[in-house]
C-alpha cells in the first residue's frame, strides 16, 4: 500500500491523461528511461483517446519501454528530441515513414524549453553553427562568433516524473532522474507530475524545493512501478 497525504492537485492517472487531446504536443521528462513518467505513459497508451501526438523528449525511451510503448501503440505522429537511435523501433518507424522526427542538439533542446518557460521568444547559440542541423537557420555574428537563432519551445501538456511532492505540488527529484523534468515543468499549459510520495506542505525545506508548486497542475501517484534491484519494474498485482 502506498500512503498518500491528500492534495487538491491529486488525481488518478486516468483522470489526468483525459486532459490530453488528439494532436496535442507533449513535453515528456526523462533521459533514456531515467526520470520517465512510466505510469502516465502507460495510461495514455491504454486509454487510447489521444493519437497523433507530438512528443518533445530527449529520447523515445527504449524499445517497448517508456515512450517506446507509446510509439509501438501508434500514438506518436512526431518526435522532437536529440537522440532516437537507442530505440530501434523509432528508427524503423521513421524508415517506414510512420514517424516524423525533428533532431535538435541536446543543449539547444534544453535551452529552447527553458526559453519557452521563461518568456524568451528566441535566443542566439553557437551550437550547431556550420552543421546540417543548423542549415537554413538564421545566423548572426556576436563578438566575432557565428550564432544561430533558435525559438523557444512550449507544449500544451508536460508529463514529468519527480520523487516527492508536497500537498501544494512543490517537487523534489531523485539523483539523475531530475534531468529534463524541472525545465519541462515550466513550459506547458498543463503540467502533470508523477510522484512516488506526497508529504504535507512545509515538510520540504524551502531552499531544497526544485520545482515550485505554481508550475504543477496535477499530481499523480506512481502506483504501477516499483524499484527492484535498482530498476523500475511493473508491480505484479494492481494496487487495491
Amino acid at each position: 500500500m502506498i500512503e498518500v497525504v491528500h492534495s487538491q492537485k491529486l488525481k488518478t492517472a486516468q483522470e489526468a491523461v483525459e486532459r490530453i487531446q488528439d494532436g496535442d504536443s507533449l513535453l515528456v521528462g526523462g533521459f533514456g528511461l531515467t526520470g520517465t513518467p512510466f505510469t502516465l505513459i502507460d495510461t495514455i497508451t491504454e486509454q487510447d483517446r489521444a493519437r497523433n501526438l507530438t512528443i518533445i523528449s530527449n529520447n523515445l525511451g527504449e524499445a517497448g519501454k517508456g515512450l517506446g510503448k507509446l510509439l509501438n501503440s501508434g500514438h506518436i505522429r512526431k518526435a522532437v528530441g536529440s537522440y532516437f537511435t537507442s530505440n530501434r523501433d523509432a528508427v524503423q518507424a521513421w524508415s517506414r515513414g510512420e514517424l516524423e522526427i525533428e533532431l535538435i542538439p541536446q543543449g539547444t533542446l534544453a535551452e529552447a524549453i527553458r526559453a519557452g518557460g521563461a518568456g524568451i521568444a528566441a535566443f542566439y547559440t553557437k551550437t550547431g553553427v556550420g552543421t546540417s542541423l543548423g542549415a537554413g537557420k538564421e545566423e548572426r555574428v556576436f563578438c566575432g562568433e557565428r550564432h544561430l537563432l533558435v525559438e523557444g519551445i512550449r507544449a500544451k501538456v508536460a508529463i514529468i516524473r519527480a520523487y516527492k511532492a508536497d500537498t501544494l505540488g512543490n517537487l523534489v527529484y531523485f539523483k539523475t532522474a531530475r534531468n529534463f523534468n524541472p525545465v519541462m515543468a515550466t513550459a506547458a499549459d498543463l503540467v502533470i507530475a508523477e510522484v512516488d510520495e506526497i508529504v504535507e506542505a512545509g515538510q520540504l525545506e524551502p531552499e531544497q524545493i526544485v520545482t515550485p508548486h505554481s508550475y504543477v497542475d496535477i499530481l499523480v501517484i506512481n502506483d504501477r512501478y516499483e524499484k527492484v534491484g535498482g530498476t523500475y519494474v511493473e508491480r505484479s498485482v494492481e494496487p487495491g
Partner: protein
Amino acid sequence: MSAQLNPDEIRKRIARRIALELESGMVVNLGVGIPTLIQDFLQPNHGVFLQSENGLLGMGPTPPDDEFDMDLISASKHPITLEPGASIFSSSDSFAMIRGGHIDVAVMGALQVSERGEIANWSIPGQDILGVGGAMDLVASAKTMMIAINHLTKDSKPKLVRNLSYPTSGIRFAQKVIDGGERIFIENSRMILREIAPDCTLEEISATTEAHFEVAEDLKTMPVTPHAMGSGIA
C-alpha cells in the same frame, strides 16, 4: 597498426593514454564509446571532476552490481556513483554549464577528424541521422577537445583526413587526437605528431593517414602500459 592487439586492448590503450592528459582540478566531460573507459585509468585521488550532461558534476566509477541504481546514470546511460562533493542539477543547468564554456576538457569519439581539427562525430552519410545528443554543444563550447579514436574505420579507411567527408559537428577544432598508435596535437590548424606507440612505425602511420601531419622534433614514445602511468609524460 598494432595489428597484434585486439580492438578491446586498443580501446583501453587509448583510454589509458588520455587519462594521463587529465589533471587535478579539471572539469572533464567524457563522451560515449572509448571515453567512458577513461575513468577506470585515472589514478586514485586524481582530482579530476567528471561532468555528465544529464545533470551531474562529480561522477564516480561504476558501482558493484548490487548497488546499481537506474536513477543514477551517466550520459552513456551506464550506472555510476557519486564522488564526495558531487552535485546534481537539471539538463538545462547542465547545458548552461557546458555551453557557457565551463567545461575544461571534452573527450569525445569521432568518425573523422580533418587535418585542421574539425570533428565529425554524429552522423554517417547515407545512414539515418536520428541521434546527435550533446555532441554539437560540446564541440561549440568546451575549452579543449580531445579526440579518442581508432586509427582506421572498420573498413580500414583513414579517420584522419584532409577534409571531412562526413557531416561536421561544428566549426571549432580539436586540440588533441589520441588513437591506438599515436598522439597528435593540432596547433594553428596543423597536425603535429608528438608521440608514437612502441609497436608502430612512422611509415605505417604515414601510409594509413590521409591528413597531412608534421612530426615533432622531439617525437616521443607513447606510454602504452599501465606501468607507464603517472610517469610524468603528460
